């Protein structure tokens, strides 16, 4: 073995060992101490396990060793190569202006929704027509791809193993997300109920606030983001799985996107590793199983970036077109997905600036991308331009610069300290600290220790070769959501707003792991396959751990459970059974109210009222002629019991929490219309 080999292996092994130590130190630090999150107190607490500094410094040392090892091995990064300009073909007739014009027309009406009252579906159809016409024009103009099907099938034949692996990952991803989704995470939360309510409203087709696809709906999300849910509810009914299925599919698509991205930018090994990491990543799995739209930003970011790199590498018009449409569609969903759109533009701009001659060769496709973005996003941009408050709505309520939190940090020093602690909480959650908030409430970091160590080494590697387009994009992809979605918002770590970072984290970790495995293959004498299989086995093991954690430890720990959500969810059958013949009265103040989304989603036709002032007079004043179902949480047990005393003979039920049966969830008391009518105060 030559000196170079020895040095390389020693340096890399040392870096892995030191990273493991760093991870151990970080995990072992007392994160409940305020000093851990306060940078100014790090040095004074350096040796008493209440500072993040030792762990981070050791990680720094690990990173330096890792880079030194790679430098010693003369490892060079994967430089992207781009296809030259395509051969121009004869012009073919296309609906370019019509597509663009229709989009502008739709944008005009989106800006002035009053003008098209009653024709909202037509407006949506026009918008789709604009995109379709433009897409068809682009594809037709591109001309037929010679032997496309033949090339595709011959590729399939040659890469059976990869296809099998890919299908396996796809299946794992879907299965891990789909299995028992109705009951885990438990329970169906009221935000999901709100999404369901909107889906029902769309299906009703009466309220223009729901039928106009270019308006803003619940939680400042465009109406269009609720359409997949509406379709799902249409086929599966107003059930929990109907709403969660959209996220399940989205989460699976994100894993798919990661595979495609890595396959395009790196290689198959990294693609397999990264997609496997993401497929079982608890935080990603968790949000892929909740029927809110946070998961969308991870989908849009992966697909947008994959298609942009695909387009750039192959000078593929259709990829640019799809990238444009998909990134613009990100404007129509969860506000965090707008970041994916910005990421796409940023990546393209960087590639243009970084690689000489790129724009000259591919400017037509870049314009197609921009046009596709413009055509697709024009209506919602027009709407936001008319109603900028709605664009800023979420940012205003969540952003620490706009909601007054930062202003309350008195001095400039305090502000910087505050921001740094926000950043630490948002970033260390990946490797060292739990996620006590943000709809996840996990006691563990997002990543297992081994993947966490790989992530940090990968980050060092990416920073080292930051000039390469994939690296700077990965870095921006990872940090953008951490900074904008969590650091600058209240209550970090905001897991629900950092999902865009999880694909990037998975890829960065996979890159580091792939690099270590490459070095292992080069210097150990082991075959390439073995070198590839070992990390995959490591990741599979990691996946198994993740699955065990999420489906057993996390569930058993009841981290996500919340009695309010459980009440609104578990009472659904009882309330829905009233149908048109009964009314539902909730004695829930100050914990639960009928406005909560689950009530309306699961029992849409049933009249519902809060009944918090429980007196005989109030009871007698209730509308007659219908059955009445009273529900009260444990907190209001006395009130509902009074009703049962005043109007005896009703149906009393005591419901316990599903996973914590020792605790009462709520009481219900149902009386008939006759009993109510007979009641004399």
């Amino acid at each position: 073995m030559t000196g170079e080999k020895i040095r390389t292996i020693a340096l890399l092994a040392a870096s892995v060992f030191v990273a493991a130590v760093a991870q151990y130190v970080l995990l072992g630090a007392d994160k409940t101490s305020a000093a851990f999150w306060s940078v100014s107190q790090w040095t004074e607490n350096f040796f008493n396990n209440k500072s993040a500094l030792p762990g981070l410094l050791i990680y720094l040392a690990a990173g330096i060793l890792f880079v030194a090892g790679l430098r010693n091995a003369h490892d060079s990064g994967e430089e992207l190569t781009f296809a030259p300009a395509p051969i121009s073909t004869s012009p073919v007739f296309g609906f370019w202006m019509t597509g663009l014009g229709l989009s502008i027309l739709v944008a005009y009406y989106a800006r002035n929704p009053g003008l098209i009252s009653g024709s909202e579906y037509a407006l949506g159809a026009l918008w789709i027509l604009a995109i379709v016409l433009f897409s068809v024009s682009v594809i037709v103009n591109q001309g037929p791809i010679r032997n496309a099907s033949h090339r595709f099938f011959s590729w399939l034949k040659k890469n059976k193993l990869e296809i099998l692996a890919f299908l396996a990952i796809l299946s794992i991803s879907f299965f891990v997300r789909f299995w028992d989704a109705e009951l885990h995470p438990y329970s169906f939360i009221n935000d999901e109920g709100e999404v369901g309510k909107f889906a029902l409203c769309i299906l009703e087709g009466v309220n223009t606030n729901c039928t106009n696809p270019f308006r803003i709906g619940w939680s400042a999300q465009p109406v269009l983001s609720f359409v997949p849910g509406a379709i799902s509810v249409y086929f599966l009914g107003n059930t929990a799985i109907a709403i969660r299925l959209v996220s399940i599919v989205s989460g699976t698509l994100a894993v798919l996107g990661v595979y495609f991205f890595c396959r395009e930018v790196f290689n198959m090994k990294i693609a397999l590793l990264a997609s496997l990491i993401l497929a079982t990543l608890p935080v990603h799995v968790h949000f892929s199983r909740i029927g809110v739209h946070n998961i969308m930003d991870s989908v849009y970011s992966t697909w947008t970036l994959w298609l942009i790199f695909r387009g750039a590498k192959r000078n593929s018009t259709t990829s640019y077109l799809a990238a444009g449409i998909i990134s613009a569609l990100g404007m129509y969903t969860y506000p965090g997905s707008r970041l994916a759109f910005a990421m796409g533009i940023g990546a393209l701009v960087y590639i243009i600036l970084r690689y000489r001659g790129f724009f000259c060769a591919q400017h037509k496709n870049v314009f197609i991308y921009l046009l596709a973005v413009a055509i697709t996003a024009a209506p919602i941009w027009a709407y936001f331009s008319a109603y900028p408050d709605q664009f800023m709505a979420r940012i205003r309520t969540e952003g620490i610069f706009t909601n007054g939190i930062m202003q309350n940090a008195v001095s400039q020093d305090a502000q910087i300290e505050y921001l740094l602690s926000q950043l630490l909480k948002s970033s260390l959650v990946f490797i060292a600290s739990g996620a006590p908030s943000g709809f996840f409430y996990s006691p563990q970091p997002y990543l297992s220790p081994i993947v966490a160590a790989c992530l940090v080494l990968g980050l060092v590697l990416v920073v080292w070769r930051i000039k390469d387009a994939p690296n700077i994009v990965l870095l921006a992809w990872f940090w953008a959501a951490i900074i904008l979605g969590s650091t600058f918002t209240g209550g970090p770590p905001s897991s629900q707003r950092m999902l865009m970072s999880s694909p990037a984290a998975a890829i960065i970790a996979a890159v580091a792991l792939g690099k270590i495995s490459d070095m292992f293959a080069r210097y150990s004498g082991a075959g390439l396959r073995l070198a590839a299989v070992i990390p995959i086995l490591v990741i599979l093991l990691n996946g198994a751990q993740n699955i065990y954690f999420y489906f057993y430890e996390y569930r058993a720990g009841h981290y996500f459970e919340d009695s309010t959500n459980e009440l609104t969810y578990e009472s659904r059958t009882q309330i829905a059974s009233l149908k048109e013949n009964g009314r539902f009265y909730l004695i829930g103040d100050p914990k639960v109210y009928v406005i909560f989304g689950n009530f309306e989603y699961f029992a849409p036709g049933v009249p519902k009222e809060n009944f918090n002032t429980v007196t005989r007079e109030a009871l007698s004043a209730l509308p007659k002629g219908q059955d009445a179902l009273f529900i009260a949480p444990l907190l209001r047990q006395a009130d509902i019991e009074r009703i049962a005393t005043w109007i005896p003979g009703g149906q009393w039920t005591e419901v316990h929490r599903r996973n914590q049966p020792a605790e009462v969830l709520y009481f219900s008391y149902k009386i008939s219309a006759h009993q109510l009518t007979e009641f004399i105060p």
Partner: protein
Amino acid sequence: MSNDQLFFSLLLIIIFVVLDFYLYRVRTDFHKRGNPWGSLREKAGTRLTTWWAQLGASLPQPSTNIASQKNSFETAQEITAMDTGTTDLLTLHDPSTGGVIEVKLNSEIPEGSSLLITIKKENGQVRASLEQDLPVAPKEDGGKKSTEKTSGKHSPDMLSLGLADFWVKAKRLIATAPFPRIATDISTWQSGALVAALAIYFIMIVVRLDQFPIYFFTDEAVHMNLAADFLRDGFRNYQKEPFPTYFSLGPMFSINSVSVYLQVIPYLLFGKSVLVTRLVSGLVTLLGAWFIALILKDIFKSRFAWLGILMLIANAAWFLHARTAFEYIELASFFAGFLYFYLRYRSGKIRSIYGAVIFGALAFYTHGLGQVLMGVTVLLLLLLDIRYHLKLEHRSDLIRALALAVLLFLPFVRYYISHHDMLSAQLAQRGSYWSNPDLGFSDKLLRFFGEYAKGLNPAFWFFETNTGLIRHIMKNYSHLWLAALPGVALGIIQVIRNIRDARYSILAVALLVSPVPAALVEVSVTRMLWFIIPVTLLAALGYSTFLAWVEVRFKNRVLLISLAAFLLVSANNLFMLRDALVNGPTWYENYSLYGLQFGARQVFEDTILPALQEDPGVEFRVSPNWANGTDQLLKFFIPEAYMSRVRMDVVDNYMQKRLPLSPQTLFVMIPDEYERAVQSAVFDEIQVVDIIPYPNGKPGFYIARVEYSENADAIFEQEALARRQPMKDSVEMNGETYEITYSRIEAGQILDIFDGNPGSLMRGLEANPFTIDIVFPNTKTLSGFSLTIATIPGYNIKSTVFAVDGSEIETYNQDFSEQGSDPTINVNFEAGSVMVSRLLIEITDNRMMETTKTHIRELELIP
């Protein structure tokens, strides 16, 4: 969705689909012809690198470091050769080189009536007036009332009644028609219309810009040629002046400044290109159009500012010239900028005076006539607004503006010191009557007013069609849009009524000053293009007033009226564009020197350049007889590397004497020359390789190979003998008749050199030296003579004086070089005054040519 919205949407969709068809057609055309933009774009990067290398080499290098200077040249040459394959680095070897008005209405307004509120400010007082239109009476007696009213106004014949009824019905129809009510926000519409108008203007100037006008004229080419040489020569003009005030190509051309500088960056980016040089000019006119809109919007508070843009390009004269690279149109656009900023200044925005100074300077330096235009305009405005200028609160800004003006005037002073005869030379070159010594001052003044009146004559602008140089007109189009005339009339009425208002008086000044520069020479449309600016403003103001009046009448259809007007003018414009592009090439069929001068692009760019690139041995002899200044066109289209293989030469020269001819030499001949060549016995065979047709399909240029016949030499000998025979003539001077024997001439006459007018020219046929032998009837005392000849680098003048007996008294031999433009040489006899009976003058072109065309303007004998 309402019917209105549906109608509006469907209409738009139809328009989009139509646009798609048009786009497809344009793309197909591009594909067939090759995308002229594409090659420009690709060239830009390479050109910048090359120029940078050239510049580094051509700028004067520190003399102390000769070694490094040499190295840098070599490096530059290597880069150039590697990147472009060109060798255009020959020069590198030359290192030496407020308030709100509130109106309260206290009145009962009956249903259906309309109110017109007019607010007017006169003599500092604001007045409001109210006009009310009563509602239409109920139906049962309305008809009667209407009939009575009608019968009171018109004679009760059936025709009048029918018309009145039709009018009532038409109004009702318009009022109830399901036309779109697009948006409630009218200002949004007006802003949108402004942008749309600019877009239409842009389309008007940019679509197939390289194809219409069909010619590419020398005067268009010179700007970019000068810009290129300016860069090549280390930011100097041909007179070696660094960052010159003006660029001069000699008396045949105007002096240019801004128009050349404007082309520098486009040249750097794209190289010489018809499209680019015209586009630069076109974009400057777009700026002019924008200023017109701003004047209407910001100064006259018109809601129809877009009308100004559309009406400007609706004028055929503007449209045609906005698509050329002539500097006149740029001057006019800068003039619009000057007016805008000055009007802003007069409207109280004092700091706009800086803008006025800058745009005034741009107009001043763009063309010689700009000096006159700006000089007179500024003088008049200075006097007119003297009280405003002298206000105390304006002082500091005005002093700074004055300083800026002085600073901007300094380049002119610098130029004037070196070229003090510039103005008179320009006037003389243009054949101005001011340089005619035979005319007295009063005659000149009368002529001036005559020309001035012609410049203001509506008949010249609005009714005359198909008169003037066909290069500058569009067939069957008057210079200005006839439909604008009523608007102009309305505008003039407004100006007269509001003449005390500074805005209107400035407009009047602009209108009245505009013909002055042209009147100094002779009125023609190109010399008057800036006149279109105030006229367009007047027309737009007039029509704005009209539209506002119509809006009051049809107040429910405000947007519809605007939209209709917009569509009407736009449709007219687009029709004119289509007409020009489709029919323009065959409007006139005189494509020759005295007509359209068609063929620059077709000859050089489409034919010669590809052939040169394809075949390294081929050479071209191109006839110069189909356009003015074809050498400039050659320079424009043919890169330096190929220049040695293309020469402007006419086949007739080869028919006069034997000149070297190789089978690789191709002649580009116009039909006349081709006919002569075919007829000539000196040629054996003429092999036509290609024919470049005129747009009407007739042959325009013959690309042919010629070969001498066996008896060509004998024919040449005979013809040479005949040409060497001198000419004889008698000239009456001072009551005496001189017998003059002189070399053969091909232009002018011998009298021209004795008429005291340097503008008249006599040109020799070929003799070198050119001899003039004067025999005096009586002995004459002479001490010398003065001779005004053409600009040539070096020449020798030999004069021999003879005594009465015929003996030679003395011979004077003098060499001259670099005497400047059309020099006057004084030859003084060393012996002083001598009695002579005969004077023999021999003028030799020192360029060692066997033949030359000696230009003699004047010969004056000095007693």
